[in-house]
């Protein structure tokens, strides 16, 4: 997975063509730490179908807020630089990674 930060976010996500998944996380966020291995697995299983990225919000707080992310874990799909779907903490808690996979199948 690509590690995003202030420097590469625009190029890797907003100016990228095709489908991009971004996992917003931080070390202090336990549900994020629980989700991360599953996102990694999902990225491996679906290699080539989308670009898989993660953004550590520690140190990139303003960037996360600019993407309207103020709660974690959050997984966002971008298509051709446009935000097309957001899984917030509530959706992740209720449906987990399966819902993310289903959305990927729909968008890819």
């Amino acid at each position: 997975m690509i590690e995003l930060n202030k420097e590469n976010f625009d190029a890797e996500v907003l100016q990228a063509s095709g489908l991009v998944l971004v996992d917003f996380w931080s070390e202090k966020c336990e549900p994020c730490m629980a989700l991360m291995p599953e996102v990694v697995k999902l990225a491996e299983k679906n290699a080539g179908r989308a670009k898989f990225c993660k953004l550590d919000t520690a140190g990139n707080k303003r960037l996360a807020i600019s993407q309207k992310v103020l709660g974690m874990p959050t997984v966002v799909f971008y298509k051709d630089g446009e935000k097309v779907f957001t899984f917030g903490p509530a959706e992740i808690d209720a449906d987990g990674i399966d819902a993310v996979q289903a959305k990927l199948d729909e968008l890819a």
Partner: protein
Amino acid sequence: MSVVYDILIVGGGPGGMTAGIYGSRARLQTAILEKGKPGGQAATTTEMENYPGFFRETTGPGVMGEFEAHAKQFGTVFLKGNVTGVAFEGEIKSVTTSSGETYQGRTVVLAPGAEPRMLGVPGEGKLRGKGVSYCATCDADFFEELDVIVVGSGDSAIEEALYLTKFAESVTVIVIHDEGILDCNKRSSEKAFANPKLKWVWNSVLEEIQGEEMVEAVVTKNIRTGEQTTREVNGVFVFIGMQPKTEFLKGKVALDPWGYIPTTERMETNIPGVYAVGDARAKYLRQVVTAAADGAVAAFAAEKFLEGHVEGRLTREDIQKLTEGSK
């Protein structure tokens, strides 16, 4: 799946993991099904200073990591899965996960835990993850130099409010009670009243959360005067108690009118061989230490059940009484 576990545990919080420790140590094939990282709610709070023996700089995730290592050391199997269905009819019980997998057990320990209760006010659902939060450790970072409010005055509310003061510019606590009255423990209230970064709004409830793409303001109402006040804030942290995560058990196991699982002193539910522990159980005090105690009792009871001693079970009449009032 052809494996039939002796004890199949649904949920990997402190209750489930203690059942795992006791079950495995009794040389029973014991597995825990957990959808996320083991530790339950205890793993989402850093402040934890009331689990006996752990008081030197310990955290929720730290203590839960020890529980996990302890269970694994005795051979508890940790399985990943979000249980959405159960079948308790036969002698062999089975549970199914959201990804369609089925697991079987001769006995089942239900440890699904609880989740934060929502306020149920306009704007709350729409703005969750956009300034409305139920997890301070997850989201506190975002509110550095910003203004947040906390709703509630129990242990979680006050302890998380104190945690938030390390990040936010101001933390205002909305309390339904008269001035000076909090529902939390004395030690936390003393700490809270001594903290200059905490502000208090008494006799009040939250009526609405406003904002388009992010939280911009809240409306509070003074329950004495009926007066409404709009307050500009960036974050709303809600800690008004919990609700049991027992939706998937409706119609399968007897629940009380609030969704909690009534049990005997031996953690037996109304279904022979099915036990319930932790925060989802109908009980007086919900803490890591009581969840752990439940887990020990349930695993011991399950061991005796597997040996054929099944006395002390709830009768149909007992359950009828316990569930009276539910639809």
